[in-house]
């Protein structure tokens, strides 16, 4: 699936967002209050209602809701069926369906605390965003035209014309780069020269030619780091991890220079493999020195021609590449939409392979734990239910979720309280929560033995450097509490508290915040590309480093700021950022949410504890 296709589905399906759907959400979230009161992990109802923060635009809708409530609850399912928002926005709507007792009980357990939101902007915001892109494109074309007349020139490295050679680049690629991306280029690829911890030093750079090129001035600015994926704060240059790493460099050197099967597999690698398996609660695991390559080098060993891959439309590039390299047929389903997934599963089994009409050899569902651009969490219990029903296999990429969520920091499986053995392939990375680099695959012994023999990474790439292995081992042991301290669990709880506090405050202020209430990646949608760039620049000037995502990484009209929370952030840091965001939100009129903020049941309890 190309970025353009992702974009198309988004634009096509998100645009006709009607207010009724939003009314529906309010209804369902109101119902939630009832369900929450039964749930064991939430506070009492009275507490929650007092905690419901001030609404910005929601009052009118509210009254309408009451009127609609009785009527809608019956037709709810039919109306929102087939609409993308129904899939991502109203997970609780499902409980209205007729189901067996057991199903309801099972669903309640996780659905009652599962909150995700993807609010659409008011229509004029979308229109303005499109217009702003249109202006950028027009200006670009004007400059191209002037360039042809010999007025002005592209200052960057344009491709020299070597006679006889076909040009290397297509026009649109360069056009986007020169006239659109270039204007916000300074918000990306910022260099730092310190630990990417709670704070970091961003190297100052200036541009003399309107962002064509940059020049480092040699100084740097200390900023609060909301850009690095340092979820549990293990990116440290002191402390037990760093000490252990130093020791390992002295003992084992800095590199191996051989692959796993060619005498590059050390005792320490075996130790790591075993520890990862233990951490995940699976039989065995294999580790790879690069997270991206874990996907792209191992997927081809699992499925081949004649197999079907059902891949979430927002899956990471590495998964897409891995799927493509495998040679299997790839179909995508709507983001986190279980109805669509079920439909596609059914269809696939019934229709069999195209042309040959043979039965599929295997069907592999590929999902991620946390989607880093949307902040959403996979509906794992449903995925597992479907997988069992249709005998498919599940590949779960926990790149962002491992360590970051779940009461024990063991990812989405832990978060939903599922059995890790229900997931066939557990993949994740060490880059984020463990402050190292690399990835793993966990699963049954049979699967891992197969990968040890057949994975591209086992044969054609050198094994992980000992220093990196040691960092993972040390941080993992801390999370597991094997260092006889409560450091690990403290970090996990701190991150959870930070996440909920930060998300709740942003929603209270009226920002449109995407994703699950427990996701430590917090995408805040600003829509207009100019606003996102301004936001990022302003933050940097005032001591905060955030990341931005714009087209083509996300749909054209949904540029966003991403805050990546960390256990190492203190409340003061969060407050400082919130204050600035609040101020900027007024300046840029970003407070567009017309929705009731989510319930944050247990975050308050921890607040008091703190």
């Amino acid at each position: 699936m190309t970025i353009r296709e992702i974009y198309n589905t988004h634009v096509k399906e998100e645009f006709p967002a009607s207010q009724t759907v939003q009314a529906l959400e309010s209804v369902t979230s109101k119902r939630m209050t009832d369900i929450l009161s039964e749930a064991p992990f939430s506070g009492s109802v009275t507490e929650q209602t007092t905690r419901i923060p001030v609404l910005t635009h929601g009052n009118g809708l509210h009254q309408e809701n009451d009127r609609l409530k009785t009527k809608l609850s019956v037709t709810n399912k039919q109306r929102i069926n087939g609409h993308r928002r129904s899939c991502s926005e109203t997970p609780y709507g499902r409980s209205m369906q007729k189901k067996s007792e057991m199903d309801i009980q099972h669903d309640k357990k996780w659905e009652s605390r599962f909150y995700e939101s993807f609010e659409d902007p008011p229509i004029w915001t979308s229109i303005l965003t499109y217009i702003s892109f249109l202006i950028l494109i027009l200006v670009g074309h004007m400059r191209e035209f002037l360039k042809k007349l010999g007025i002005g020139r592209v200052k960057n490295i344009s491709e020299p014309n070597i006679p006889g050679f076909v040009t290397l680049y297509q026009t649109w690629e360069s056009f986007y780069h020169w006239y659109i991306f270039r204007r916000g280029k300074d918000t990306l690829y910022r260099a730092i020269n310190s630990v990417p911890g709670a704070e970091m030093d961003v190297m100052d750079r200036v541009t003399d030619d309107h962002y064509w090129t940059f020049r480092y001035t040699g100084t740097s600015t200390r900023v609060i780091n909301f850009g690095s994926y340092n979820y549990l704060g293990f990116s440290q240059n002191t402390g037990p991890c760093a000490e252990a790493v130093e020791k390992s460099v002295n003992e084992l050197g800095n590199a191996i220079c051989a692959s796993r099967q060619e005498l590059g597999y050390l005792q320490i690698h075996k130790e790591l493999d075993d520890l990862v398996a233990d951490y995940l609660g699976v039989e065995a695991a294999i580790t790879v020195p690069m997270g991206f390559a874990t996907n792209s080098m191992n997927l081809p060993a699992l499925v081949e021609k004649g197999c079907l891959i059902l891949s979430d439309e927002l899956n990471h590039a590495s998964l897409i590449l891995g799927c493509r390299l495998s040679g299997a047929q790839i179909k995508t389903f709507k983001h986190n939409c279980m109805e669509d997934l079920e439909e596609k599963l059914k269809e696939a089994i019934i229709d069999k392979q195209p042309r040959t009409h043979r039965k599929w050899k295997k069907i592999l569902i590929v999902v991620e734990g946390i989607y880093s651009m949307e902040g959403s969490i996979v509906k794992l219990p449903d995925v597992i239910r479907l997988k069992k029903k249709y005998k498919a296999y599940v590949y779960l990429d926990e790149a962002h979720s491992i360590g970051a969520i779940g009461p024990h920091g063991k990812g989405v499986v832990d978060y939903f309280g599922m059995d890790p053995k229900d997931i066939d392939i557990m993949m994740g990375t060490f880059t984020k929560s463990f402050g190292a680099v690399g990835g793993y695959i966990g699963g049954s012994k049979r699967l891992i033995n197969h990968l040890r023999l057949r994975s591209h990474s086992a044969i054609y790439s050198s094994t992980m450097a000992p220093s990196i292995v040691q960092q993972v081992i040390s941080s993992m042991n801390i999370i597991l509490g094997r260092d006889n301290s409560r450091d690990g669990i403290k970090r996990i709880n701190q991150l959870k508290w930070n996440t909920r506090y930060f998300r709740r405050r942003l929603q209270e202020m009226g920002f449109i915040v995407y994703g699950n209430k427990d996701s430590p990646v917090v995408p805040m949608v600003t829509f207009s590309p100019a606003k996102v760039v301004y936001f990022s620049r302003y933050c940097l000037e005032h001591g905060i480093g955030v990341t931005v995502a714009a087209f083509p990484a996300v749909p054209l009209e949904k540029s966003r700021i991403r805050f990546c929370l960390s256990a190492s952030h203190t409340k003061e840091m969060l407050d400082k950022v919130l204050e600035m965001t609040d101020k900027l939100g007024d300046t840029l009129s970003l407070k567009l949410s017309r929705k009731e903020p989510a319930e944050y049941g247990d975050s308050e309890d921890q607040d008091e504890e703190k």
Partner: protein
Amino acid sequence: MYDMFQALLQAPSYHLFFEALLIIWIFKLLFFSKAYAPESVLTEKEKEELIAEWQPEPLAPEIPDDHPVLMAMENNIITGKPGKYVTINGKSCVNMATLNFLGMAGNPSVEAEAIKTLKKYGVGSCGPRGFYGTMDVHLELEDKIAKFMNCEEAILYAFGFATIASAIPAYSKRGDVIFADEGVCFAIQKGLVASRSKIKWFKHNDMEDLERLLIEQAKEDKKNPKKAKVTRRFLVVEGLYINYGDLCPLPKLVELKWKYKVRLFLEESLSFGILGSNGKGVTEHYNISPDDIDLIAASLENAIGSTGGFCCGKKYIVDHQRLSGLGYCFSASLPPMLATAAIESLRLIDEKPGMLVELRENCEKIHSKLSDINGTVIVGEPISPVKHIRLAEPSTDRDFDVQTLQKIADLSRDNKVAVTLARYLEEEEHKLPLPSIRISVNNQLSDEEIDTVFTTLSEAFQKIITH
């Protein structure tokens, strides 16, 4: 109009009736054709049955626990630093297996640099290059590599395999044509697959075969000049082939490149830091300007003794990967401590080119010695640090040969010389090389050690082959 009406009245009634029928029939065809379509829709029950019937193949095949390769990994427990010597099961062996040609993995000054960086930056960079994962050491390393290779710019990847595998699809798309050597390594093969371009394989190092393909392509282009105008043509070769230990005929390749207007990509994972008087690779070895090559890619995991890889070349070419190289954009950056380790290794190579001379001498010595072992063939150039020892009379059964070689490797390991078989994914390689024991040479071997390696290996070969 009146005439028409008159004509209608005068027409016989059967005619009118017939026309009316025709019109109704057309209407039916237009609007109700679906109703006449044969019923092929399955009932719900049939669907459920189909779903219940379907049984998938197991996710992974059953592998016996005593599979030889698994056993080799499980039973050969390596502890301590894998430098010139490697400790396997508590026994110290001469290390002829790992691609640590210059001893950079285990070099004290490289380690010291790594630790210094660790104390400043920690271990991970916690993000891709775009999102605060760029550190000053990455910029410095890119700069150093570009200077070292006399190129305009270099781009750093976090993983050797991903370097060329990402670089090829960044340029070559569907509809483009790539000419590739049959002997290229697996990473290149995957890059070629990912690009979805049309691949034209030429025989390993056979320039006549390549030229034949190029002429063929030129003829095709002449036939369809419109298509030829947008079809990019690439030529992908390895500098020093890891699967064969031989060099690519670069001067001829460059000549063909200019003659037939193809862009030349050169993979130098094995030759970077080894060949040429200053370790700049095949270009220096053949005394060819790097400007003649469109893109040079190499891994930092061999001679440099770190992790990662890089591409270098003209700025307008390399810069493109910063937005289009998948492995660059979507992956966490190289840990800073490994980046500074690479910087230090580069500095050492630059400062002491003498070690390259030592290495070359060792390579030649070992090559001439190993050529004396009966019943074997040495594949590769004398100056190549990687040598493949193949059986002179291979049997028709590949598995049997692999087992024989494995026995030889085991025996020589027991006699304190660690060697490994060159492993391949046999089903997936484009052209599977014959089984071999892969020897890698390093510059620190003394003459006595080379003698030990020779005697141990030749004894092992004699013992196993004659049995």
